[in-house]
């Protein structure tokens, strides 16, 4: 649905986007993750046709953004980072106006405006002036505007920006439900949001696409090894040797606890081997006491930090 090839954007001498390529399939939700000024907004603006690229091509639904801009714009709903609102208008007037310029059939404008207002629950502020709305409402009116004319592609720049926790959950649910029949690109710097809403994550840093994959795969790949944490009651040296004799185990670290024969063991194993069962059986067969067992996984936060900080010791 969206094809981006070798996208480059210069602002003067600054390279905001540096050779980014990716595709998004129909019905997929792609999350852009990256620190501020990483090039997320610029990439989105180029896809929406707001600004032209310095080099590279972008196609949306088969139409080139540069050559067939109008066709692309008809198919994209866009929520910019700051919701584009006319503060002197009432919500309903604003949505009516936006529906008109987006080419909604004049006969169905009322129904269409009500539909998106319902969806974003802004129906009770329809007659208020936008300047009087809270930030959360403004954000949702901006989102409602993007859904007008039901475009197949949605580009959402930090859609949960400025919302309170309950509204954030609501908006995430809306995005997830949109994913079934829309193609969505959203950007965020809130990490859990990506793993919660997106099918795939693109990590962008300093204008470059660092990694693009599913949240699960990203976590898997970056872990490098599986690590398991156990708390066992029993003779420490014996347990340590027993663990390290297992085929898949690469390292065992012991952290003695307060009590004499209770210690915490961190067992590293090769990727893909799930040795939790084997370790548990080992402990039980020797008659030691298994107090705790958990597999340690890297949070997206850790991955993000690892990928976007300079000292790359990953891989």
């Amino acid at each position, binding site marked *: 649905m969206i094809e981006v090839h070798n996208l480059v*954007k210069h602002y003067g001498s600054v390279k905001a986007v540096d050779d980014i390529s990716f595709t998004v399939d129909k019905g997929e939700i792609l999350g852009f993750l990256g620190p501020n000024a990483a090039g997320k907004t610029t990439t989105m603006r180029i896809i929406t046709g707001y600004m032209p690229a310095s080099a590279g091509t972008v196609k949306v639904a088969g139409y080139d953004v540069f050559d067939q801009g109008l066709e692309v714009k008809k198919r994209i709903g866009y929520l910019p980072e700051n919701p584009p609102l006319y503060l002197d208008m009432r919500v309903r007037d604003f949505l009516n106006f*936006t529906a008109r310029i987006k080419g909604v059939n004049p006969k169905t404008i009322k129904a269409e405006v009500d539909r998106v207002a319902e969806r974003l629950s802004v129906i009770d502020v329809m007659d208020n002036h936008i300047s009087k709305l809270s930030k959360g409402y403004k954000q949702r009116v901006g989102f409602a505007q993007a859904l007008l004319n039901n475009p197949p592609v949605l580009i959402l720049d930090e859609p949960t920006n400025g919302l309170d926790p309950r509204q954030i959950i609501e908006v995430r649910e809306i995005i997830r439900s949109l994913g079934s029949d829309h193609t969505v690109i959203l950007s965020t710097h809130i990490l859990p949001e990506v793993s919660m809403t997106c099918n795939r994550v693109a990590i962008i840093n300093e204008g470059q696409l660092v990694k693009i994959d599913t949240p699960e795969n990203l976590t898997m790949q970056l872990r490098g090894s599986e690590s398991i944490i156990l708390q066992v009651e029993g003779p420490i040296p014996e347990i340590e040797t027993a663990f390290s004799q297992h085929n898949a185990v690469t390292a065992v670290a012991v952290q003695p606890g307060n009590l004499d024969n209770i210690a915490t063991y961190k067992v590293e194993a090769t990727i893909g081997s799930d040795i939790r069962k084997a370790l548990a059986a080992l402990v039980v067969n020797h008659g030691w006491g298994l107090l705790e067992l958990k597999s340690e996984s890297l949070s997206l936060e850790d991955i993000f930090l690892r990928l976007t900080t300079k000292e790359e010791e990953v891989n």
Partner: protein
Amino acid sequence: MGNLLAIYKRDLKGYFSSPIAYVVIALFLIVTGIFFYLLLSSFLQYSYAMMMQRQGAPVNVNLMMIRPFFLNMSVIVLFVIPMITMRSFSEEKKSGTMELLLTSPLTNWQVILGKFLATFTLYFVMVVVTFLFMIFLFIWGKPAVAPILISYLGILLMGLVLIAVGNFISSLTENQIVAAVGTFGATMLLWVIGFAGDFAGKVFGEFFKYLSIVNHFEDFSKGVFDTSHLVYYLSLTFLMLFFTYQSIESSKWRG
């Protein structure tokens, strides 16, 4: 066409839902009203004196009262235009709604012309309301109608150019004050360049006088409709609209 109309209606409503339209129209009517009153008083004094002396040609209200009134109006307009054009693009840029317009399936021309026509409509209303003053002249006198209508046509044509200039300058900045001051500077320049014509030698002098927006209005105020002035006003308007288009395109590239 529907899109152009949507932009037009929104902008026009924007003028009238904020105090801007009312303040500007009121200001314009007060200032033109004062000039009208002063001109009328001196005209009455003069014609009274003439009547007392029972001599000379009969006084002509068109020549002595209406013509100077329109010449005054053509200068007042130079001061008012920046106030009604300063918002047009600057505010959209500042509030981010330009992003909405440029990512909606609209062409640049639909946006530019929609806004241009909305501002012109406000201007049209503002100018036409001054016809109320003329009614007094018609009640107590017999002014010729054609010169009045031609003068109004001239004022409206002048407005086309000035609004296009104002819109263009507004499209260059997201600061409304800068847009207003810049437009004011430009309209003043288009006015005083005619005075410079008197000192600039033969060739440049003629050229400067030709550029002066107020010089072209003089014929209209005499009730003379000359197509060369029409060409001047319309071509300058199209040039400014074209500049606006280029300004919007180039701001896309600069991001």
